C-alpha cells in the first residue's frame, strides 16, 4: 500500500517535471518566398539562429524554445490559414511574424479573438494605430521615416520638395504618410510622380520633376530595384538637388545596384547599417554589432534591417516571458506592454498602453552614401 503511494507520488512528480520541460512554442508565419522574400528570408534565418542560441544557453524560464514556422509567400490569405493553424493546431504561446502589412492585418482579427500575443514585423502605422490589445510591432513606421526626412530637409533649408514613388503597397503607404505630414514641417510637395513596380526606366518622371519650378529636394518612396533605377536616372539627367531615399532600400544592396550614382544620397535607417562606425558611447552599438556579426558569420550574407526586426521581436517576446515569469498569454501580453528601455536593433523600445511599437524618431539615423558606403550624415 505504502509502496503504491510512493510510486504514485513519484509518477506525479515526474510528469509535472515533464510538463515544465515542455518547450515554449514560438509561432511564425513569414514571406520566405515570393515577392517579399527579401523580408521573410532574413527574418526566418534570424529566428532560427537565435532560437538555437537561446536554447544553447539553457532556454527561457528553464524551458527550451521551439520555433514553428510557416512560409506564407507574401500571400495574406495563406498567412491567415497558417495563423489559424498556429493558434488551433500547434497551440503556440506567442506569434512573431507577418513580414508584410497585408499579412499582418489579415491575421489581426484571429489573434484578437484567440487572445494570443502577436509581435508583427511589418511597417505600416495601421498595425498599431488604433492600438489593438494583443498586437505589437517592432519596425519603424513609414510616417516616422517621412518625419525624419522632412526634419533633415528643413535643416538644409528646403521648403519645396518633389515626391516620386512606386506603385507597391509600401510605396503607396509611405507616399500617403509623407503627403500627410509634409505640412507639419512646413514643406510643400510640389510634384508627385509614380512608376510601376517593375518599370525599367524613370527618366520621364524625373524629367517632369526637373522641369517643375522651385524643387529643392526629391524624395523617392519605394523598395526593390525601383529606387536604384531612379538613382541612376537621376544622375543621368544631371539633377543636382539632394535626393532622399526611404528606409525601404536601407541595405548594402542598394549601393551595389546604384553604384556611383548613389553618392550623396541620404536616407533614414536603423543603426544596424552603420553598426561598426557608431561611436563607442552610443548605447545601441553593442546590440547591433553583436547581431550583425552573429548573422554575417553564420549566413555569409550582409545583414539587413529586416532580419533585425525579427531579432527584436524574438527578444521582446523572451523579455516579456521572463518578466511575466510564465508563458501565460495574458501575463505575457501585459509584460510586453510594460517593456521600457529595451535596446534593440531598431532603437530603444518604450511600450505603453497607448503605444504598441514604442520607438521614437531617435531610432532613425540619417545616413548618407559616401565612397560606396553608409556614413552618419552630420
Amino acid at each position, binding site marked *: 500500500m505504502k509502496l503504491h503511494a510512493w510510486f504514485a507520488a513519484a509518477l506525479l512528480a515526474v510528469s509535472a517535471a515533464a510538463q515544465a520541460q515542455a518547450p515554449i512554442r514560438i509561432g511564425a508565419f513569414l514571406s520566405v*518566398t515570393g*515577392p517579399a*522574400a*527579401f523580408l521573410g*528570408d532574413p527574418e526566418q534565418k534570424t529566428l532560427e539562429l537565435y532560437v538555437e542560441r537561446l536554447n544553447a544557453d539553457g532556454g527561457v524560464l528553464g524551458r527550451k524554445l521551439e520555433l514553428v514556422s510557416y512560409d506564407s509567400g507574401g500571400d495574406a490569405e495563406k498567412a491567415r490559414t497558417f495563423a489559424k493553424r498556429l493558434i488551433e493546431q500547434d497551440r503556440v504561446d506567442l506569434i512573431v511574424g507577418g513580414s508584410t502589412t497585408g499579412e499582418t492585418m489579415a491575421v489581426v482579427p484571429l489573434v484578437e479573438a484567440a487572445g494570443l500575443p502577436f509581435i508583427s514585423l511589418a511597417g505600416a502605422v495601421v498595425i498599431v494605430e488604433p492600438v489593438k490589445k494583443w498586437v505589437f510591432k517592432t519596425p519603424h513606421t513609414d510616417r516616422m521615416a517621412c518625419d525624419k526626412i522632412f526634419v533633415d530637409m528643413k535643416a538644409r533649408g528646403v521648403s519645396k520638395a518633389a515626391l516620386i514613388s512606386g*506603385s507597391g503597397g509600401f510605396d503607396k503607404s509611405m507616399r500617403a504618410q509623407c503627403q500627410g505630414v509634409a505640412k507639419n514641417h512646413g514643406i510643400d510637395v510640389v510634384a508627385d*510622380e*509614380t*512608376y*510601376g*513596380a*517593375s518599370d*525599367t*526606366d524613370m*527618366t*520621364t*518622371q524625373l*524629367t*517632369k520633376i526637373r*522641369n517643375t519650378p522651385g524643387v529643392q529636394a526629391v524624395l523617392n518612396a519605394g523598395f*526593390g*530595384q525601383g529606387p*536604384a*533605377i531612379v538613382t*541612376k536616372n537621376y*544622375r*543621368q*539627367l*544631371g539633377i543636382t538637388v539632394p535626393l532622399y531615399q526611404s528606409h525601404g532600400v536601407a541595405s548594402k*544592396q542598394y549601393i*551595389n*545596384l546604384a*553604384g*556611383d*550614382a548613389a553618392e550623396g544620397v541620404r536616407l533614414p535607417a536603423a543603426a544596424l547599417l552603420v553598426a561598426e562606425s557608431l561611436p563607442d558611447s552610443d548605447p545601441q552599438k553593442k546590440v547591433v554589432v553583436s547581431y550583425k556579426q552573429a548573422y554575417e558569420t553564420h549566413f555569409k550574407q550582409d545583414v539587413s534591417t529586416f532580419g533585425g526586426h525579427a531579432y527584436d521581436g524574438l527578444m521582446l517576446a523572451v523579455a516579456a516571458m521572463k518578466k511575466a515569469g510564465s508563458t501565460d498569454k495574458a501575463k505575457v501580453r501585459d509584460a510586453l506592454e510594460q517593456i521600457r528601455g529595451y535596446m534593440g536593433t531598431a532603437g530603444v523600445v518604450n511600450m505603453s498602453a497607448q503605444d504598441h511599437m514604442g520607438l521614437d524618431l531617435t531610432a532613425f539615423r540619417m545616413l548618407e552614401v559616401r565612397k560606396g558606403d553608409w556614413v552618419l550624415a552630420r
Partner: protein
Amino acid sequence: MSAQLAQFLLSGLTVGAIYALVALGFCIIYNASHVINFAQGEFVMIGGMAAASFLGAGLPLPLAALAAVALAALIGMALVKFAVEPARGASVVTLIIITIGAAILLRGLASIVWDKRIHALPAFSGEQPIEIAGATLAPQSLWVIGVTALIVAALWWFFNRTLTGKAILAVSHNRLAAQLMGISVRRVLLVSFGLSAALGALAGILIAPITFTSWDVGVMLGLKGFAAAILGGMGSGPGAVLGGLTLGLLESLGAGYISSAYKDAIAFIIILVVLVLMPGGLLGGRATERV
C-alpha cells in the same frame, strides 16, 4: 520644352528597345511551332542571373556572357527534350500550357540555385551619359538598340538564306509536308528553342545594367515583350521591333504628358485599339488557320 520632348523620346526608345529584344525571342519559337513560349521571360532572367553569377565567380564579362547564353540555350533544348517532346501530338494550346509550367519551374529553380536578391551587371562602356539635343541617354541603351538591330538583320538572314531557317519556316507552314520532305521536326524544334533561349539570355545580359536582374524579373519582361510581339504582329522580326519601340514610346509619352500613374493603362488601351482595327498586328500577315 523641346528638350523635355527629346528626353521623353529617348526614354521611350530605351525602354522600347528592351521590349523589342524580348519580343524577338517569342518570334522564333512561334515561327517553328505556333507555340507562344511563356517561358521566354525566364530565359531573359536566366541570361542576366547566370551572367551575374559567373561574373561573381571571377570570369571576365564577355566570357561570363557567353557562358550564360550557352547555359540558356542548353536549358531551352532540355525544355524540348523533357517537356515538349513527350507531349508529341498534343495541341498547340497544351504546349503553351506546358511552357507556362516550365516558366514556373525555372523561376523556382533560379530562386534556389541563385538567390532571391537583386543583382546588377556593370555597364559595358561606362555610365557617362550621352547628351543629345538637351536630353541624355545612357551608353548601355545604345548597346541594346544596336544589338536589337543586328539581331533583326541576323534573323532575316537566318530565316531567308539558310537551310535550317527555311526548314523552320517550312515546319511552321505545314508540319506533315515538311516531314515528308525529309525535315526532322524534332531537330527544328530543338534548334528553335535553343536559339530563342540564347536570344532571350542575350537580351537579359544586355539590359541587366539598366534594369537589374533577379529571379522574378522574367514575369513582367515576358509580359511586356509578349504585348510588343502581338502589337507588331506575332512571328515577324521587324514587327517585334516596331511593336517594342511603339510600346516603349507610348509608355514614356503617356507618363510624360498625361499621368505617370496611368502610363501602363494608356499603352495597353492603345494596343487594344490597334488590335481591334488590325487583328494581325502592325506588320503581321493575314491570319492563316492551321487545319
